[in-house]
């Protein structure tokens, strides 16, 4: 019988059928970070349980660590040091590797794991972090869980999981100039709602997805959770295999040959069934930006803020009114030209080398507008080093961007740094929720090139003229 990629991966990991559509799945990799992973390790210890396979679990310090130069265990977030030190101690006791502060591999867990070859095509991978789906970009079945489930995965190397429905989203045709993976996923969420993927494992496919770089596929999968999907993934192909080859924890030698022979079969069969299919013509996708406080509040960059009175669904209209109030906007306002106070490039969504290269191509020879606080936080110390080897840091710094150490940083406000009340920020991150980037901070989600163009203009701006394309 024809099977989808998700079904193939599911079946190879099924330890037992528990009935009622629930299976016990084998888990290949468990990743942890100091904010929620700390609780998983603490929970296990309190129960007197041990980690079954500490060699296949990894800790990244990313959520609470400072990203300022010269950082240490001290944090701007009150109490942050305890999270770092307790996680470090618990990981050491359990025998789990830590990519710690000062390690040249440290960074955001969903950037570090693929970069180190921990995530591989075909694996099951979990982390108590909602953006674990990012790693589906390699063809892994990767999903976010809570701390209690993480403890379960550590103690048993399995999880009890309800079989998701399957959805295929096909992006067909060539992407217009200036449009990238971030615009694709925002476009999808705007069209089908922030709840549109609920209950589904989504395979992103189609000619435009095939054409995306592996890093861009991770950006696409990253925001599957913002679509309420259980996870998202892209079938591995020759590009994926080339990307994975030679990474520190990836197989080598005979094992590599065996692995790629297996990975080549990791595709949906031609007549595989999906519970739902969505087809998007890429010619319809423009550079996209959010105006409100849900990722579904997204419009083409050249568009206007919608009018809640024209929204049929009463609950959605009410949410739009709240969002307008929070964002300090009125129906009909143009997004382009809105003055900004901050620009942020970073996060597990858009902080990889290709993102920094794209932003730098806009920033080169230009200056950030007066009054705009612009910050770039590379996704990992490896990304930072690679960017510096190309001189990208000089481009960012000459333009007036702060050039930081790696971490989740100002993607969210944990009590340390933030942009400030009422400040309008164009950001390459994934969540524009109320107060996410600081109490009262107004976040507009966009691609790295849109963030860069807006930083230069001092207001929300179209990156296309600066890319040499119109």
């Amino acid at each position: 019988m024809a099977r989808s990629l998700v079904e193939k991966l599911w079946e190879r990991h099924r330890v037992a059928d528990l009935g009622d559509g629930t299976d016990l799945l084998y888990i290949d990799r468990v990743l942890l970070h100091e904010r929620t992973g700390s609780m998983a390790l603490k929970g296990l210890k309190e129960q007197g349980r041990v980690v079954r396979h500490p060699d296949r679990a990894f800790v990244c310090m990313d959520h609470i660590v400072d990203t300022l130069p010269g950082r240490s265990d001290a944090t701007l977030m009150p109490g942050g040091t305890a999270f770092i030190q307790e996680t470090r101690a618990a990981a050491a006791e359990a025998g789990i590797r830590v990519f710690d502060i000062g390690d040249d591999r440290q960074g955001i867990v969903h950037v570090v794991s693929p970069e180190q070859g921990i995530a591989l095509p075909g694996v099951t991978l979990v982390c108590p972090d909602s953006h674990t789906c990012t790693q589906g970009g390699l063809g892994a079945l990767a999903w976010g869980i809570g701390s209690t489930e993480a403890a379960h995965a550590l103690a048993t190397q399995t999880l009890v999981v309800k079989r998701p429905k399957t959805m295929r989203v096909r992006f067909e045709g060539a992407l217009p100039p200036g449009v990238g993976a971030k615009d694709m996923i925002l476009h999808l969420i705007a069209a089908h709602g922030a709840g549109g993927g609920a209950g589904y494992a989504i395979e992103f496919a189609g000619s435009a997805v095939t054409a995306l770089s592996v890093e861009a596929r991770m950006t696409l999968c990253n925001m599957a959770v913002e679509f309420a999907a259980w996870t998202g993934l892209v079938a591995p192909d020759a590009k994926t295999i080339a990307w994975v080859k030679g990474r520190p924890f990836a197989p080598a030698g005979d094992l590599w040959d065996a692995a790629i022979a297996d990975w080549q079969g990791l595709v949906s069969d031609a007549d595989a069934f999906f519970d739902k299919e969505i087809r998007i013509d890429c010619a319809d996708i423009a550079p996209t930006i959010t105006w409100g406080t849900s990722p579904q509040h997204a419009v083409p960059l050249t568009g206007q803020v919608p009018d809640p009175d024209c929204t049929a669904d009463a609950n959605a209209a009410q949410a739009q009114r709240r969002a307008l109030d929070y964002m300090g906007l009125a129906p009909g306002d143009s997004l382009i030209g809105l003055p900004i106070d901050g620009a942020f490039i970073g996060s597990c969504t858009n902080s990889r080398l290709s993102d920094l290269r794209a932003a730098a191509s806009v920033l080169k020879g230009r200056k950030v507008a007066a009054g705009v606080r612009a910050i770039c936080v590379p996704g990992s110390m490896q990304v930072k080093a690679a960017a510096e080897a190309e001189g990208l840091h000089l481009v960012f710094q000459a333009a007036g961007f702060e050039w930081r150490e790696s971490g989740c940083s100002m993607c969210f406000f944990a009590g340390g740094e933030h942009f400030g009340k009422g400040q309008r920020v164009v950001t390459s991150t994934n969540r524009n929720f109320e107060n996410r980037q600081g109490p009262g901070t107004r976040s507009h989600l966009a691609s790295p090139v849109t963030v860069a163009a807006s930083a230069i203009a001092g207001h929300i701006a179209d990156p296309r003229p600066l890319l040499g394309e119109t």
Partner: protein
Amino acid sequence: MEKFTRLTGVAAPLFRANIDTDAIIPSREMKRVSKEGLGEGMFADWRYSDVAARVENPDFVLNQDGFRQAPILLAGPNFGCGSSREHAVWALQDYGIRCVIAPSFGAIFQGNCVRNGILPLVLPEPSVAALARSDRPQVLTIDLAAQCVRGPDGTERPFTIAPADKEMLLEGLDAIGVTLKRLPVIQDFEGGYRARHPWLFF
């Protein structure tokens, strides 16, 4: 884990769509590597007009007479979307919320509820909207075994729940303990799996 069998209590309406876990427990309210005391930070940005000084916002439903001790929330679709932070569930639990009724839930949040003795109860949107419409506190009775919500007027609304989730809540099961009973099955699987996928093992 605390069992969930039957609950009678006031239901507080918070009928907004896409209430995310950042709203339920803002990052800065997660101050220690601990579940304790999180209830104070629950919905902090909405519940307090001055968060630092903990000045109550009188407009927020849980600050209003009759709703303060509500053990049930009535919420809009996609409740608990966003961050996986289990602290959102621990905050609700610490405050005293035992059940959230919504048309749908964020998947990770829903799983976290079940593992902490909180019932994520799914009812169709019109039913939740009807229950949330009253401005006065109304008492609901939730019977998990019978899979039924009884309203103040005696109206009974059935609901569905995954059998495994129901059992976990009714019995207050320790999920890790249950799975560890299958350890021989897991070990047997692991042997074959390793032979088929040797490159995944260090």
